[in-house]
């Protein structure tokens, strides 16, 4: 077990190293770093000073080494626009993004599982077919456009929900969260639902497939034969067996929720780190872009690592297969 974890850990370090190299080379070789670092109007001495300060006259491997050394000390550079450490700016915006992604994850479970199980248990009903057709649309709809349409219907036409922003927040353990105030809830509902749509479709498909499979298993027949109520058969016996694949897939999808929040945050003006990235891309604020990418890579690698370890704990076959490779 510990050998497995160590091997996975080493793999993750390699992935982070490779990605840092890619991001670094992308910014410094493909793009012109001097052009990104100084405004074109700056005097010649200023440009030369910056080239020297950032070590741009040194060979590339030395520059990369410097970047890694600084990054390991938590220094990912300063934002041009804000004049503050890039890392600090991103960490400040992180709770908003994570809150949005978590609420979206909750919605995927709360809406997705019941609808999917229903469609799986009664596959021939018209309502089930409508659910499945809806899930196809959930996969095909461009997220950002759905967000716009939601704003149009619920904020502009009906006036039920606020269209943008985060609303009131309360502090818990030093983190500001909005799901505990009514105003915050009304602000988070639309963006979270928008972000969750794709995952709801995914959960519907997974739990429908799971329910259809479980329906014909012997243990379900046996539970029925014992005379258990239909509700107990569905809610306890079938549900338990659906949850395993759904939970693992959702764990993996959490990372993609954070990545896709870039789109949702822009549509709903949600003050998270995805919106920060888009602003940075518009302003060519390269240190901030690099910092965001490095952090998101780290988040992804950690999520993948945790899911892998969890997998091997739950399913010993994964461990053995990996050792045999």
């Amino acid at each position, binding site marked *: 077990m510990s050998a497995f974890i160590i091997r996975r850990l080493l793999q993750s370090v390699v992935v982070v190293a*490779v990605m840092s190299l890619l991001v670094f080379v992308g910014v410094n070789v493909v793009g012109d770093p001097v052009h990104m670092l100084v405004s074109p109007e700056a005097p010649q001495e200023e440009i030369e000073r910056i080239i020297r300060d950032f070590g741009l006259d040194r060979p590339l491997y030395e520059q990369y080494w410097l970047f890694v050394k600084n990054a390991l000390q938590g220094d990912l550079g300063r934002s041009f626009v804000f004049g503050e450490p890039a890392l600090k700016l991103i960490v400040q915006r992180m709770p908003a993004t994570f809150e949005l992604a978590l609420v979206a994850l909750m919605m995927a479970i709360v809406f997705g599982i019941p609808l999917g199980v229903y469609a799986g248990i009664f596959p021939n009903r018209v309502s089930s077919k409508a659910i499945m057709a809806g899930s196809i649309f959930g996969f*095909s709809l461009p997220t950002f*456009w759905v967000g716009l349409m939601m704003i149009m219907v619920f904020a*502009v036409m009906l006036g039920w929900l606020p269209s943008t922003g985060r609303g009131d927040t309360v502090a818990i353990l030093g983190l500001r969260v909005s799901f505990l105030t009514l105003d915050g809830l009304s602000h988070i509902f639309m963006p979270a639902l928008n972000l969750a749509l794709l995952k709801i479709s995914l959960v519907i498909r997974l739990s429908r497939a799971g329910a259809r499979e479980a329906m014909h298993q012997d243990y379900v027949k046996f539970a029925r034969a014992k005379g258990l109520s239909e509700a107990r058969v569905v809610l306890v016996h079938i549900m338990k067996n659906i949850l395993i694949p759904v939970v693992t897939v959702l764990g993996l999808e959490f990372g993609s929720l954070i990545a896709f929040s870039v*789109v949702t945050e822009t549509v709903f003006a949600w003050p998270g780190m995805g919106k920060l990235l888009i602003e940075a891309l518009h302003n060519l604020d390269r240190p901030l872009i690099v910092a965001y990418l490095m952090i998101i890579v780290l988040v992804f690698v950690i999520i993948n690592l945790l899911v892998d370890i969890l997998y091997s704990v739950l399913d010993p076959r994964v461990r053995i297969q990996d050792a045999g490779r």
Partner: protein
Amino acid sequence: MTEIVDTTEVAVRVETPLQRFVADFLENRIATGALVVLAIIIFIAIFAPLISPTDPYDLATVSILDARMPPGEVNLDGVPFLLGTDGAGRDLLSSIFYGLRISLGVGVTSGMIALCLGAAIGLTAAYYGGRVDTVIMRLVDIQLSFPAILVALVLISALGKGIDKIIIALVLVQWAYYARTVRGSALVERSKEYVEAATCLALPPRRILFRHLLPNCLPPLIVVGTVQTAHAISLEATLSFLGVGLPITEPSLGLLIANGFEYMLSGAYWISFFPGLALLITIVSINLVGDQLRDVLNPRLQK
């Protein structure tokens, strides 16, 4: 009596694989409808300059006085605007036709290049195996563990703006899907007798790869190709909406939707709604056609 004659006729009639494929495909009414819609969309995209009611980017005919006209309105000169006009007075229907041209163009071009690149890499991995295979597939695994939009954003921030750069980014986002698909089916095909026979004849590897293996890996590749093209169109629209995709000189559907965003809060819904609807119809019909292709091309589902 007539019945017997009928059955013999059916048994005797020889179908070519293509005929069978077409017949199987047309069995599904929804997919057939989607194919028709897709054909119309492709027609519009190719012939946009000829069939558009007006040229939305001809400054001589576009008038700011016509700005934000609701759908169906007619302007002072008697020119009707079926889907209304945008903030600069451009006819929305014409803008959508031109936008479809750019969106489909970028999506299909990048999809085709990624297909060729991915197929070549996937075939190489499957044919040579060993270390080559391990390195390539590790690369594919790492890339696929990150969502497409994130990979695209990384690439865009390195490459910058421009239609060629977007196509490069979309190719680099997609190649891994094709490589994995081709490698999977090529591995199965490689162990079959005909490849063994070709190897025994001492045919050059290139010939075995492209003349023997590739044609047999095509069916799954075509299916992945349709779905990926839909993804590419959607991804390009998303990037353009975020303002990091195509430049303003190449107004794709995503950019049209973004332009309408600012007018939405004042109630001019149509500027964002109709381009989005066009995008949605395009993506849904490609996906439906892809679904049916998958069912028809999958021998396990054949009756």
